[in-house]
Structures are given as C-alpha cells and as structure tokens.
C-alpha cells in the first residue's frame, strides 16, 4: 500500500482550516450551527470560520446570516466570551439580515484561543 501525502483536504473540514489559520498566528473565531428548526439549509454541526484579517470559510446558512455571524465573531475574538445567537423569522435581527428561507437556527460563536 502506498499512502500518498498530503491526504485529500475534505471540502467541508472548516475546523481543520481554522486550526491552520490559528497556528499561522491569525485571530480566529468559529461559528457552529447547534440547532435548527424548519427549512434551515445547513444542519447542526455546520461551521463558519472567520479571522480578524478578513478570511472566511464555510457557512452556517445559505448565505443569509453569515454577515451578522461574522460581526458577532469579531466581538467574541475581542472579548473572548462565546455567544449563542438565535436567528428566526420572529427575530428582529433576522429580519434585518434577511433569513429568507423561513427557518430558525441557533449558532454558537467561540474564539480559538
């Protein structure tokens, strides 16, 4: 058996990518979908990684709330305090950022220390 290196990078392995960024000295936050209701496009466990320098990878929705999550991530990077965000059609903030799918979801945002 010949084991070729490097192993193929999984297209959806956001955490591994975030860890690489962190190891390279970036300030990184990771957002993870923890719970969904209705027609949320990304299931629990889906991740979005962002850096202070402006890198972004992955997704927690179909693109509707990534902007708001990235803003929250910047705050978590500054304070070190994790946040549990709630997005849904009854949520004013979601209207603001436009959760067009009509789904509801919770997103946990944490800093990679």
């Amino acid at each position, binding site marked *: *058996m*010949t*084991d*070729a290196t*490097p*192993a*193929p990078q*999984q*297209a*959806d*392995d956001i*955490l*591994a990518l975030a*860890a690489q960024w*962190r190891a390279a000295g970036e300030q990184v936050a*990771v957002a*993870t979908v*923890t*719970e969904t209701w209705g027609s949320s496009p990304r*299931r*629990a*466990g889906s991740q979005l990684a962002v850096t202070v320098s402006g890198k972004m990878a992955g997704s927690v929705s179909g693109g509707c709330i990534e902007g708001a999550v990235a803003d929250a991530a910047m705050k978590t990077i500054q304070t070190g*305090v*994790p*946040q*549990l965000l709630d997005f849904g059609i009854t949520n004013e903030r979601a209207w603001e950022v436009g959760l067009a799918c009509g789904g509801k979801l*919770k997103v*946990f945002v*944490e*800093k*990679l*220390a």
Partner: protein
Amino acid sequence: MTPDLLAALTAARAAKRPVVVATRLPSGEQMLLPSPDAGPELAAAAARALDRDESDTVKLADGAWFLHVFNPPQRLVVVGAVHIAQALVPMAAQLGLNVIVVDPRGSFATAERFPNVTIMTDWPDEAMDALVPDARTAVVTLTHDPKLDDPALDRALRSRAFYIGALGSRKTHAARLKRLRELGHGEEALARIRGPVGLDLEAVTAPEIALSILAEFVAVRRNAPLATKTAAKAAA
C-alpha cells in the same frame, strides 16, 4: 475552544477515533468525549449521537449541551483504476470520502493517474481483507473483469459495507449474480449490490457516470426515497 481541546480533537481525528465535542450552552464550557470525566447521562447521549452520526443540541438534567460529532470519514473502496475511477475519485474526495483505489494492474494504478489517494496494488480479495470494510465503508467495482470484480464483491457481501455498487450492463450484472450465487451468496445478500451502479441519468461520459454513482451514493447515505427506488431496479 482551548488549545488543549483543539489539540486533543485534532489528534483524535488524525487517529480516526470517533469523538464528540460537548459544549454546554450558553456558557461554552467544553469537553471531549468519550472521557472518564463525563457523567453517565452525557456519555450516553454522546454515544447515541456518534451512532446516529448527527450533531445536535440535547437537554439533559444539568442543562443543554451541543454535541458535535466527529466520526472518521466514510471510506470508498474503488476497485479498478480505470478511466471512470479517475473522474470518480476527485469527486468522492469533495464529498468528504476517504478514497482507496484497488487495482493489481500496476500500469493502471499509478500515483500519476490518482494523485493524493491511497492506492493498493494487491488482488481485490486481499485488499478487502486488509481494509476490513465496516458499516461506514462503500465499495464500487469498475473493472468489468470478473477476475477482479467478483472477489471484491464477494468480500463486500461478507462485510457490513453500506453501499455496494458494480458497473456493468443489466446482462453483465445478471451473469455476475449467477457467479456470486455459485460462491454461496443468497438472494438477500445479492440484493445489496446496486447494479447497474448509479442513478439512471443516461450517463455517457466518464464524469457523467461518476456523477450518477455518487448521486446514488448520496441518496443511500442520506436515506433518500431514491435510494430504495434504485435498490428495486436490480430486482426488476
């Protein structure tokens, strides 16, 4: 996430150990499971999440926990380092599969034709014995050569592989089933083989055939109604 937890998680994933990151909500306190420090209720919930392969938030007696499942990637064993395999392998990697290409014909199974995947040039039965297909393994045979396909299918049928596909026309497949019957496989076992493999897209080119195979694989992986429809096609 603390550097210690991230390091432990990265090590577990590199070693292909199934683990769960449990996060207490909303405080964010975290723990890697399985762990001797976990309470029995949390340990049991994590084991269930791994088994279902689904991350989710659970409400336990001590509050809400998000259980993030990190199972090792599913494996795809491709028997036959042929032209269709060259299209199939990179697409399968995109789907998060750990791909192993098996072909004893050294001129087919080259790193040049298949960069960045594990290549085995053993005979398919020996390769399958070494790989020990489990319930997170899929097997697809592409050689059209009974000498190579049959031993691989024989071993796949003796395993818990969750997806078994064989390339070839209906006529070829009927002949294949006859040979496998002679090896002692019953009808229930034979019905596990998806043949002709893939969703019926009228695929013509190698990438189209690869796409039809992976489309069927996704239907099976996600338990879609299409998955049962395609299983019935073999019997029809």
